[in-house]
């Protein structure tokens, strides 16, 4: 079977699984959260994996949009689709501002700029009255889609989230395979060459930044709509680190990587306590019982291991393995 076919079957199975998941006993809210993070990581990967720009400020887009949507739904009482639209556009605008400054410098400086600007937004959110400070924005209503469909029902909400995330993912796929996406890859491989070919690389980079930020904003908005709150932890820089980790674990510059990576990381964080308890009972070492509280430590360890030994990530390794197998058969 060709790699393309395998991928096709894989995505088909994933979609089928997601379609029937609520009927197989999966907790819909949790799966919705997973999908939001999958979208967030895919949006981030569009920038890092396909344009070669490491943004360390994506928390600003996730969290900023989460607040915007939350505020619009709660205070202005708009319908959910308007709330999501506002969040997405807001994320894109934030991306325009951050991106504008980030592309003024190259490489590592540009990363530091995104981090600093996102941290600035964090402090703004900490002090601004409408974010609820340390408590966050609580009790955001889901409302009725187009004023007609009540989203209070988790199942209705679930299929809306699924539809939006699938659509956004297809948009990312389309972007990457478009001529625009090819130019982005060209910039990633060799920026001076792209410039000498006559491309205005700054404009392409900025556009990629805005697109990535808008989609990350959409993920944040959806998350607020699903969970009914927006908190400071979304805007905190650790959230940016989080999305880098998801993408890295899944596989940089692969389409499926962020999907797998986000699932692995979110599941790991949720189940770490249980894993710790299991290890403690299996090995008799009391310390493992505290593993659930040491998520940062384990996250850090995964980072270090990934960078040193596992840079291609899960999907990157699988794709490389398939390619090797095929090459072996042809010989």
């Amino acid at each position, binding site marked *: 079977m060709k790699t393309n076919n395998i991928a096709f079957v894989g995505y088909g199975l994933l979609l089928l699984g997601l379609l029937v998941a609520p009927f197989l006993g999966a907790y819909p809210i949790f799966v919705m959260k997973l999908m939001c993070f999958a979208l967030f990581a895919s949006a981030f990967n569009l920038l890092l994996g396909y344009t070669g720009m490491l943004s360390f400020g994506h928390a600003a887009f996730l969290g900023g949009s989460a607040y915007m949507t939350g505020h619009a739904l709660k205070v202005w009482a708009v319908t959910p689709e308007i709330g999501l639209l506002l969040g997405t556009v807001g994320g894109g605008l934030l991306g325009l501002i951050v991106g504008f400054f980030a592309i003024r410098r190259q490489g590592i*400086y540009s990363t530091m700029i995104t981090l600093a600007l996102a941290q600035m937004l964090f402090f703004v959110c900490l002090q601004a009255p409408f974010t609820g400070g340390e408590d966050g924005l609580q009790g955001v209503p889901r409302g009725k889609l187009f004023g007609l469909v009540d989203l209070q029902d988790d199942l209705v909400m679930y299929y809306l989230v699924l539809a939006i995330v699938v659509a956004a993912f297809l948009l990312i796929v389309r972007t990457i395979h478009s001529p625009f996406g090819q130019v982005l890859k060209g910039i990633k491989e060799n920026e001076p060459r792209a410039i000498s070919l006559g491309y205005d690389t700054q404009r392409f980079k900025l556009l990629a930044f805005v697109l990535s930020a808008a989609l990350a904003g959409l993920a944040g908005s959806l998350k607020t709509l699903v969970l009914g709150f927006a908190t400071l932890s979304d805007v905190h820089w650790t959230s940016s680190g989080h999305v880098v980790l998801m993408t890295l674990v899944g596989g940089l510059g692969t389409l499926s990587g962020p999907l797998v990576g986000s699932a692995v990381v979110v599941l790991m964080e949720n189940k770490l306590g249980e894993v710790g308890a299991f290890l403690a009972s299996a090995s008799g070492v009391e310390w493992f019982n505290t593993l659930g509280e040491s998520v940062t430590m384990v996250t850090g360890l995964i980072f270090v291991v990934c960078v040193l030994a596992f840079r291609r990530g899960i999907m990157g390794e699988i794709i490389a393995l398939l390619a090797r197998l095929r090459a072996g058969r042809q010989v």
Partner: protein
Amino acid sequence: MEIFGVSLPGLLSQLLLGLVNGSFYAILSLGLAVIFGLLNVINFAHGALFMMGAVLTWMAMNYFGINYWVMLLLAPLVVGGFGVLIERLLLRWIYKLDHLYGLLLTLGLTLLIEGVFRSVYGVSGLGYDTPELLEGATNLGFMYMPNYRAWVVVASIGVCIGTWYVIEKTKLGAYLRAGTENPRLVEAFGINVPVMITLTYAFGAALAAFAGVLSAPVYQVSPLMGQNLIIVVFAVVVIGGMGSIMGSILTGLGLGVIEGFTKVFYPEASSTVVFVIMVIVLLIRPAGLFGKEK
């Protein structure tokens, strides 16, 4: 006496506090610059190493009764040794890769180190008493100057100038600068560049720990104390550019002072003012105040 409705002693004491913060910015951005110059790695773990310096000082006092002055020497040595391990065991493998992996590796390291300390000490601050010798304040006539804060500024500037002197004026520093420019050529002249790289990282780590010890009596000692600091220091580095040692020092001190003034005149902006300045500098001089765009 009042200036813009703020009493002069109040203003001066904020200025001194700003200089204290600026001293830490200066030492940390100096270390980042030296490490980046030779290793091409942005050391995200710098904040964690700073924190280690402070927490080790607290631990030494509370478990072994080792006093501040001993730790001022011991903590940088211990953390410097830790830096040797980091460089030899981890960083060494990624020099040939893209810059971003260095950042990600040291970020992972930061989370790991902070996680370990957090699992022991939680996130609340631990108090550390000012050493007896520097307790109290000196009456300068126009203000009371807390002795300890003055000491922090003097010690930091001393260390910064010392580092500047070593790098710019000695033979060792000349090797270092040559290594930054062209490591392969320096190696061809028979200088052991790998050892030089290890020692450079260890030195940067020791500097961070030294700042950590100095900070123990002024800040709350906590496993997360380095986290927010390192991001501000990144902004400082973007503003100053990493090309010049003196540039790092001056930018760090200057921004600390500006932050101090902001606390007096517009406290709400004091946590964001450095970032705002970064934005302005990027608009006017994208390469940074002392930087050369490569």
